[in-house]
């Protein structure tokens, strides 16, 4: 395992041109050894470019890539000692499962006994040990992906395992179990893993740390819980969580935050200078109440969406849309007008779309 650092790395496919369009805006990141990271964002956000820069397929137009402090920016893929799992299962069709797993080691001219031991160890972890003699091409797509992963894991010294949307072509039924398997394996072998996906929930289910990207920019890096609880921007608030985080435009009068003329007590302050002040609150934390109190606001029910165990209420508060996620057993208010309570600790301040935590 290796620590991967990218230092001020940026990439443009049209460097130097008038309208230089950055596929990846210059940024610096550290991927600690032995941890699993997910890069997530919509297509075109730069996550694949970043992955390709790490794998050596793309040479960044600026910055440095360091593997354990050594500059590998100029090195080709082959010399970087990484492993990669692709979107479409890539196996060596003509080989058996065993030969597939042994291939990287044969390329490194390991001796037979050592290869054999290692392959068996990895195969066991992958639950493939009973199928080692089968032609790899006969396996199902999810098992093929495991082989791809295994080809990385057999190499003790592998710097990092890069996974590029590995669940894309997997049957929905099997996605779940493969995701689980990948998680188990990475916990067991603890390689440095960079996992690219467009599915935020897959990212959060697999990775210890998630990097949300958009338009070539890194939006936020953190644990799933951090992303959920304190999204650093309205975008992350929208992107993580379903339904998305509520953002309400608030007024700031005399240092107080007001919503529709009523005071909104918050644990943090919003700086004066911002042009647009918003309060973000997760639908999970919006409560429907009957008794007025602090931080309660009159609401009108527009629509109810039945999600099963929960219902999502779409309401209008101070002329703005707000969603609340309510357990089914709470039922639906019989009245058209009622109150919602926005808990003080869960209402986060956003200035110009960014979270600002000044107390």
């Amino acid at each position, binding site marked *: 395992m290796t620590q991967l650092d990218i230092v001020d790395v940026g990439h443009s496919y049209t460097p130097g041109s008038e309208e230089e369009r950055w596929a990846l805006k210059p940024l610096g990141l550290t991927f600690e050894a032995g941890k699993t990271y997910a890069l997530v964002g*919509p297509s075109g956000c730069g996550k694949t470019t970043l992955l390709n820069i790490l794998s050596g397929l793309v040479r960044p137009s600026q910055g440095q890539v360091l593997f354990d402090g050594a500059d590998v920016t100029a090195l080709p893929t082959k010399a970087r000692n990484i492993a990669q799992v692709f979107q479409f299962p890539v196996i060596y069709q003509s080989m058996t499962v065993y030969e597939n797993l042994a291939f990287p080691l044969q390329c490194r001219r390991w001796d037979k006994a050592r290869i054999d031991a290692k392959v068996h160890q990895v195969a066991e972890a992958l639950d493939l040990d009973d199928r080692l003699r089968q032609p790899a091409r006969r396996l199902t797509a999810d098992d093929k992906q495991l082989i791809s992963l295994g080809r990385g894991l057999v190499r003790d010294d592998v710097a990092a395992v890069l996974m590029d949307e590995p669940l894309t072509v997997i049957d929905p039924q099997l996605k779940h179990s493969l995701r689980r398997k990948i998680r188990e394996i990475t916990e067991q072998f603890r390689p440095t893993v960079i996992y690219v996906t467009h599915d935020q929930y897959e990212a959060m289910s697999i990775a210890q740390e998630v990097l949300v990207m958009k338009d070539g920019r890194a939006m936020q890096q953190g644990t799933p819980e951090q992303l959920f609880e304190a999204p650093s921007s309205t975008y992350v608030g929208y992107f993580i*969580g379903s339904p998305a985080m509520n953002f309400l435009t608030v007024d700031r009068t005399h240092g107080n935050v007001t919503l529709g003329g009523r005071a909104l007590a918050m644990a943090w302050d919003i700086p004066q200078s911002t042009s647009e002040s918003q309060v973000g609150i997760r639908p999970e934390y919006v409560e429907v109440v009957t008794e007025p109190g602090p931080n309660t606001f009159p609401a009108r029910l527009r629509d*109810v*969406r039945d*999600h*099963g165990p929960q219902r999502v209420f779409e309401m209008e508060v101070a002329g703005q849309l707000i969603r609340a*996620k309510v*357990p089914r057993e709470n039922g639906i208010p019989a009245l058209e007008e009622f109150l919602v309570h926005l808990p003080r600790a869960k209402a986060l301040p956003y200035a110009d779309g960014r979270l600002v935590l000044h107390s």
Partner: protein
Amino acid sequence: MNLSATDLCLTVDGVDHLKQVTATFVPGRLHTVIGRTMAGKTTLLRVLAGLQAVDSGALTREGADFLKTPVWRRDTAMVYQQFINYPHLNVFDNVAFPLRRAGLSRNEIRRRVISSLARVGLADFERRKPSQLSGGQQQRVALARALARGTGILLLDEPLANLDYKLREQLRDEFRTLFSDQGDTVVIYTTTEPAEAMMLGDVVLVMHEGQILQIGSPQEVFERPATTTVASIINDPPMNIFTGRIESGQVTVAGFQATHVSAHLADLPDGVYQFGLRATDVSLASAGVEGEVTFVEISGSETFVHAAVGETPFVIQIEGIHDVALGDLVKLRLRPERLFAFDEEGSLVRTPSYDLAPVEGR
């Protein structure tokens, strides 16, 4: 104008794709068909569209034999799971294609194409080729084409399954308004996601292994799942199902201490039952039965913790996103008042009651 299927059967290579499917689809209502992959949902739609022949059974529309009507006269539109458009035509021509076939006037075609593209939010994309669009946009084109014709039957086969999560969420919201004024159209929508089925459907049909297990309003199906299978299909994560017994007023389920039967189960005779408990009705607590975390998933704004109590797996749904490490020992608490009781064959015998009287959402 009803579309009625009676005892439709189809077996291919010894596998039942449809098994005595009987259902009536009513104009103006949205029918969601929920089931896992391979449940026969797509086959059903293809039979209704005329793309697939059946071994036996009847299909009638307005009392006439619909099976004899060829596809191109069925007045049916279909949206596929894969984004299927004519690759050689631009967005405008794609949407106009069926209208031209129907022989509408130029102006009428133009009017309808423009308006239906506007409805799906693709007003400025007329001249693009499908390959120049993102997946979501391609699916919108397909949708616009289906809507523009105003057919008597509209079939949607997991139209959101291949889209990004956020897009799915967004389109799902839009669908509610998009399909709200379908007039005399029979709309049938298949999905694997309970929330989608519940949210969109006026009527929910639960399919499994080629059979229709239950038909009813979303609420009915959700709150009174006819069998354990329905119960696990209509819940995400699937309802926890485990065996237990009721004995002299006590309920015993695997690994848990016996508790008093709650009111709704009180009149059940002693014996072995299968119990169902939604993931939301199991919780992590400071005290309770110990389980080992085998996997943690995050979906939407919820964390699903998979934990094994002895040999019995449980899924616990927690609101919000939480870091739970694999292999941790957690304490589980069940809510006995939430137990669904099924007999040993899996048929529903009791449901928990809700505190508030259910009210229709719309």
